[in-house]
């Protein structure tokens, strides 16, 4: 038998690869299974109302996930609101305007941001960002944007807005590095096509670059969102950890990930522990649902429109 022509080797290889692919399903199923199994006490006690109740009182054994779901979604979306324009700006600058000599250092530095451990971000936020928020940014926002109703109440520097800002800094490198690659992949003939019509540089970026890269950019934002939803340590350190739906951007809040990190070691009683694991289940579901919605959006844009990604 000739070397390489053996059916056995081929079949073994195929089976091996199939195993690798199936293991992904197995891992997801196992995680989901364990989460459900270990939270069955709480599931049994509260049923579906766990996801609708907003009190979290370990002493009286009354648990609901609403404040955490709210805090998780609000901090993640606020973070995206801050990070996406910045990240796109960085990506466009690096590709379209940056002098060649600066390109590598800037890319390198943005990617370095992603390598800093989350707890270090948390420390920096406590010692630098929180005082800035308390003394300068907070009063400024209150004075000029107080009329929106988003900035009332006391401003201690810790709270939803501060957590969102630190999250924004953390997801920035994820979004900008992917957006940079997507923008780089837009063929030069597109840029020339727009320029030849007499477009300014900004029009060229808008029509020839961002428009062509939009689907990839949405993908980058989805990845950033995934990171923002699950980020634990830095957020826990500055969000204020108060289990209530925040009435203002300055108010303390709580996220699903933070409450698990904070209370897991001190959870006494089976129901308390079980409720925390159900919070984990909630985080798992929130991430899946948000991702599914985002993907659906992309699908609708690509199918409904005449558009096709380059």
């Amino acid at each position, binding site marked *: 038998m000739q070397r390489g022509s053996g059916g056995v080797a081929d079949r073994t290889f195929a089976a091996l690869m199939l195993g690798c692919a199936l293991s992904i399903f197995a891992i997801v199923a196992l995680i989901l299974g364990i989460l459900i199994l270990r939270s069955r006490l709480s599931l049994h006690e509260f049923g579906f109302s766990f996801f609708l109740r907003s009190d979290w009182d370990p002493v009286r054994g009354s648990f609901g996930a609403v404040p955490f779901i709210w805090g998780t979604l609000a901090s993640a979306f606020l973070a995206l609101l801050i990070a996406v324009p910045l990240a796109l700006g960085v990506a466009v600058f690096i590709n379209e305007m940056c002098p060649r000599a600066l390109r590598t250092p800037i890319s390198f530095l943005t990617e370095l941001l992603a390598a800093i451990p989350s707890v270090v971000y948390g420390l920096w936020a406590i010692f630098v960002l929180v005082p800035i928020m308390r003394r300068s940014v907070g009063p400024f926002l209150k004075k000029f944007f107080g009329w929106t109703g988003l900035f009332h109440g006391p401003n201690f520097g810790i709270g939803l807005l501060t957590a969102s800002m630190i999250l924004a800094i953390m997801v920035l490198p994820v979004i900008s590095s992917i957006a940079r690659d997507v923008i780089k992949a837009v063929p030069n*003939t597109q840029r*020339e096509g*727009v*320029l030849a019509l*007499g477009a300014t540089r900004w029009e060229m970026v808008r029509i020839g670059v961002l428009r062509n890269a939009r689907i990839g950019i949405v993908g980058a934002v989805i990845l950033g969102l995934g990171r923002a939803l699950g980020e634990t340590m830095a957020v826990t350190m500055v969000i204020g950890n108060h289990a209530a739906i925040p009435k203002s951007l300055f108010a303390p809040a709580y996220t699903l990930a933070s409450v698990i990190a904070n209370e897991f070691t001190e959870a006494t009683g089976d129901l308390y522990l079980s409720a925390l694991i159900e919070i984990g289940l909630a985080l798992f579901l929130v991430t899946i649902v948000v991702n599914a919605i985002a993907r659906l959006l992309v699908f609708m844009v690509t199918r409904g429109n*005449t558009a*096709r990604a*380059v």
Partner: protein
Amino acid sequence: MGVGIEVEDLNAWYGQTHTLKGINLQIPANSATALIGPSGCGKSTFVRCLNRMHETNPVARAEGTVRVGNVDIYKDASPVEVRRRIGMVFERPNPFPTMSIYDNVASGLKLNGFRNKRVLDEVVERSLRQAALWDEVKDHLKSKSGASLSGGQQQRLCIARAIAVDPEVLLMDEPASALDPVSTAKIEDLIFQLKDEYTIVIVTHNMQQAARVAEKTGFFLSGHLVEFDSTHKIFTNPSDKRTEDYITGRFG
């Protein structure tokens, strides 16, 4: 209506490489002028200097005078203004894939601030008719992407896009070299019709193409304009030995 182009002592460089060496020529208005020559002879660089597209390359620079109509495009106008008056069609069709056929054609007008739907509709139809594409696309103007067309249709769409803004000059950088023979023939027919209204400068590798569409032909060799004369003369009785060698296929 088209205008003539006068080029005086044009030199261009890419970094240290001197790619155009003292080019002088006069391109007549409302006619087609072909530029031929072997690869790397500078003919593409030359047309890119005519609408200042070479400036999009950071290491490229040019010196000399180019007058389009009576405007000195290096002194009296910004690159953006120059490119609004001088349309360009590239070697590879580059329709905007995220836009419908209609929006592709209207894109130049929209850049110039036209928003009136009736005007846009009119111009889009007229441009697509001029580009001989109207009958093929009129039923799905807004439902199909510019990228969904065939290569030849895409190139005609790009021509429609370029003429929609009513330029005075239309530059074509090897517009048919990526197309099949049937599509090429259509593009050539189109050039033949368009030259009544626009001044057309076409760069081509294909000498028969130059002979078919152009009144005048220029022969470039290593950055020099070797000979510029009526197409008939260039192809039957060239004055320069190098031109003769090239058109008879002795090199290039």
